[in-house]
């Protein structure tokens, strides 16, 4: 039997029962690899359920720094009876199967091409620990200890991690370390030499941090100066607000009296959540909400109000698999169209697409600036994979010289000094953005009436056809201005002469770049452009023009990003073959390679069928 033998390049899959406290043990494992300087990418695959259903945690270890889900696994840590057989059968030939050998495996487990790694977890645990509640948790820690021995990990990295985690609760550190040792010693004694997967310290992580995108969103909103939040719980966005609130407790408490420099309202639904944001922004506070697909649908009418009445709002949309309730705990990039064009009538909204936690942090703060500069709702589109999983990310930085861009707002003195008549919707500067005032600013000047009905330049009600149309055209002008303000695309040219390009956003990036490496080995050279915002810069269309074929890679069924590209620019749709992944799991490089290769070979087979336009 040929065992899989690899160092710093493999996938471990933990199969647990939801709610059994496995998350912290599995995290400990991933963190230890990270602290040994090896790039690591853990992904939770969990059910929409609180307790009792199967959940998996995949840890990809990659010295080459590939952080996308790889697909498949080399070692299973199988501690869930419900899925034991499946976890076993899905192993590739040469794979490893670590299981709780307190109970014997049934006759079904008869593969000859899999190495068994039996550890009597329950028995070890029950012998060593009295406390029934602790037993459950420590059983998980024991397998981490065993893995440390099997994979040749630095044991002190694990013990230090435990000590750090329980720095404030030393009583818990002891039993955890004991559990690690139990597992480690057992594996060292009974399973030595059985596993050919190894972790070896390298310098592959550098300055980077390991954090989830939702925490980054929450922190970014705090740094960006948000003071009012309206929200309604929905997976996978809830932890954005939890993080924001946690940091507010730390950084937004007044010295005297302990009052908070923030107001967070859990709303009755997403309409109310966005209503709170719009009301606060209208009144001069920075405000945001976080939600997911179903919430965006409910927010539709108010997003249109924000667009037409020109009120800033920031919506952090952590996408999940739809349609309808879809798969609440699975990932997709399927709200691109519903976000871009949310609401009735002619509406469109700037979108930002972060692709790692640092960008989540930056874009949450930038969105607050952009929304106020442009006086319009701005949506930031993350997804479950980026939002809820720990992602390796460059560290966040903040320039202390940075000032919040509050946009065109007239102060009391501005109003006082102003000679000409002020109009709320008067485009003085020609960029489509007008000057606004906050309520309460001046006793005699600058008050106006905000309405979602058609209005003239002085915010008076009108149904005049010419005035209405002129106003709509000004909003188009503002859209052009938005184009120059949103972050531009990131270009990765491999070879300017290559006819092939690819476009993608957000969490598809890691898999895409890995795929291009793999394709390059086969002589397929792909130039890449990662979009960071909508409206699309002219550069995006120049990139498409410069290539014969540009693959649009995204995680939804209907090629929504592609639709948006086709809709918003002068481009031949045939030039943009879609590369789609939409099963709810994060996209992999293998999927992308397979689809691109298939598309290229169909090109070759049918060169004239489509008039050679591709």
């Amino acid at each position, binding site marked *: 039997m040929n065992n899989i033998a690899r160092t710093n390049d493999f996938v471990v899959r933990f199969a647990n029962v939801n709610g059994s406290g496995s998350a912290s043990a599995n995290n400990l494992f991933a963190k230890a690899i990270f602290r040994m300087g090896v790039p690591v990418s853990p992904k939770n695959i969990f059910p929409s359920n609180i307790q009792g259903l199967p959940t998996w945690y995949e840890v990809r270890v990659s010295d080459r720094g590939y952080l996308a889900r790889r697909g498949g696994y080399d070692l299973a840590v199988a501690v869930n009876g419900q899925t034991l057989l499946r976890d076993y059968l899905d192993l590739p030939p040469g794979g490893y199967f670590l299981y709780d050998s307190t109970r014997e495996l049934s006759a079904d487990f008869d593969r000859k091409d899999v190495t068994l790694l039996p550890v009597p977890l329950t028995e070890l645990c029950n012998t060593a620990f009295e406390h029934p509640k602790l037993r459950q948790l420590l059983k998980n820690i024991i397998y981490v200890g065993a893995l440390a021995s099997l994979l040749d990990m630095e044991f002190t990295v694990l013990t230090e991690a435990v000590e750090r985690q329980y720095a404030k609760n030393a009583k818990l550190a002891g039993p955890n370390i004991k559990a690690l040792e139990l597992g480690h010693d057992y594996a060292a004694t009974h399973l030595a030499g059985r596993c050919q997967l190894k972790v070896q310290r390298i310098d592959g992580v550098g300055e980077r*941090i*390991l954090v989830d995108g939702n925490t980054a969103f929450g*922190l970014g909103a*705090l*740094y*960006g*100066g948000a*003071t*009012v939040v*309206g929200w309604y719980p929905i997976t996978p966005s809830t932890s954005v607000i939890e993080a924001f609130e946690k940091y507010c407790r730390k*950084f*937004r408490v*007044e010295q005297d009296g302990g*009052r*908070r*420099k923030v*107001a*967070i*309202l859990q709303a*009755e*639904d997403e*309409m*109310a959540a*966005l*209503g*709170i*944001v*719009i*009301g*606060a*922004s*209208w*009144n*001069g*506070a920075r*405000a945001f909400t976080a939600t997911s697909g179903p919430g965006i649908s409910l927010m539709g009418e108010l997003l249109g*109000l924000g667009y037409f009445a020109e009120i800033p709002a920031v919506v952090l949309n952590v996408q999940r698999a739809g349609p309808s309730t879809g798969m609440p705990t699975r990932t997709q990039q399927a709200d691109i169209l519903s976000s871009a064009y949310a609401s009735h009538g002619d509406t469109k909204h700037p979108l930002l697409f972060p692709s790692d936690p640092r960008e989540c942090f930056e874009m949450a703060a930038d969105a607050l600036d952009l929304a106020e500069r442009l006086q319009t709702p701005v949506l930031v589109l993350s997804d479950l994979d980026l939002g809820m999983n720990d992602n390796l990310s460059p*560290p*966040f*930085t*903040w*320039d*202390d010289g*940075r*000032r*919040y861009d509050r946009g065109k707002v007239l102060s009391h003195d501005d109003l006082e000094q102003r000679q000409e008549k002020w109009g709320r919707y008067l485009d003085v500067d020609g960029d489509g953005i007008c000057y606004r005032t*906050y*309520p*309460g*600013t*001046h*006793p*005699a000047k600058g*008050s*106006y*009436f*905000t*309405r*979602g009905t058609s209005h003239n330049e002085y915010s008076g*009600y009108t149904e005049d056809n010419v005035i209405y149309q002129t106003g709509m055209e000004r909003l188009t002008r503002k859209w052009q201005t938005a184009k120059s303000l949103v972050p531009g695309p990131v270009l990765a040219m491999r070879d300017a002469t290559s006819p092939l390009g690819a476009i993608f956003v957000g969490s598809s990036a890691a898999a895409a770049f890995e795929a291009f490496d793999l394709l390059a080995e086969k002589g397929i050279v792909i130039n890449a452009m990662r979009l960071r915002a909508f409206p699309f810069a002219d550069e995006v269309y120049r990139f498409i023009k410069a290539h014969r074929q540009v693959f649009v890679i995204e995680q939804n069924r209907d090629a929504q990003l592609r639709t948006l590209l086709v809709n918003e620019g002068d481009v031949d749709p045939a030039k943009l073959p879609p590369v789609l992944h939409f099963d709810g799991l994060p996209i992999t490089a293998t999927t992308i390679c397979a689809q691109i290769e298939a598309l290229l070979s169909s090109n070759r087979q049918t060169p004239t069928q489509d008039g050679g336009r591709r």
Partner: protein
Amino acid sequence: MSSERPVFRHPQAAKNSAGYSRKDYEGAISTLCAGCGHDSTTNAIIQACFELAIEPHRVAKMSGIGCSSKTPAYFLGRSHGFNAVHGRMPAIAAGANMANRELLYIGISGDGDTASIGMGQFAHALRRNLNLNYICMNNGCYGLTKGQDSATADRGSAGKKGEPNPYSAIDLCKLAIELGASYVARGFSGDKQQLVPLIKGAFAHNGLAFIDVISPCVTFNNTSTSTKSYEYVREHIEATNTFDFIPLQQEILAHYPEGTSQEVVMHDGSIISLHKSEAGKEVTSRRLALDGLEEEKAKGRLLTGLLYVDPQSVDTHDIVNSTLRPLNTLGEADLCPGGATLAKLMDGWR
């Protein structure tokens, strides 16, 4: 009824203590139907603001959609206004209020806007006890969409189309009391004497003040078969109490009229002084307030006046423990922890 109302010969020219004349509280010319109850309610709001010498620019007017929700354009033309979307005034007012706790918020809604599409937001503004003066102009129908029955239309009541309403009615005051409003009153657009002090009391109140103003729609629901017509309401109205509203600054000078019984000292120190001779003296009991509404309803009467007030009420800002400073005035120094702190946070993720 207010004891402090000045008696001048030319009230239009008179100035209040803030230096504003009544005209300064007016807005654009109403485009509602002549005789619409909403216009009278608008006038009562203007009167209350004028008499209390409220600075117009320190008021924010919020509304939903409907004929009623249009009225913020017709009063306080020097204030910022926000005519939002149907049924969502409470959330937008909540956000506005969170941004700046120092302004006075007047939220205008209709019975369709409140009791149907906006029922959820209504309920939750109440339970949050948002510091908002929520005035529902209740005509038992959807005026703006041409007269359909609303959820507050009484069973059996018939508007212009003549079809009696088969559904039971929602009593917004009862709901408001049950859901946690801290000031609940019912007025009638045709009785300004009673309505103006009700509005003034609401303005002085800290927390959600809800006033259900029966405000007849002359175009679609003022028929002899409608229970929200001027004629019907005049015949069936029952006032629970009458009172004088004595603002803080006049408190010392006020000399209480004969027969004054209960006094409710409001959050800001102003006083609601209820008349002894009236029924339902006890206005600080939720249970008695609900009983009163039920009893009069059983008699076929419509109870009006101040129904319930909790002078100790705690508003949303205090519930969420937010700063006393308006949040919209805070800048980087207050809000941003800075680069060095961020660098330290990074170590936690290594």
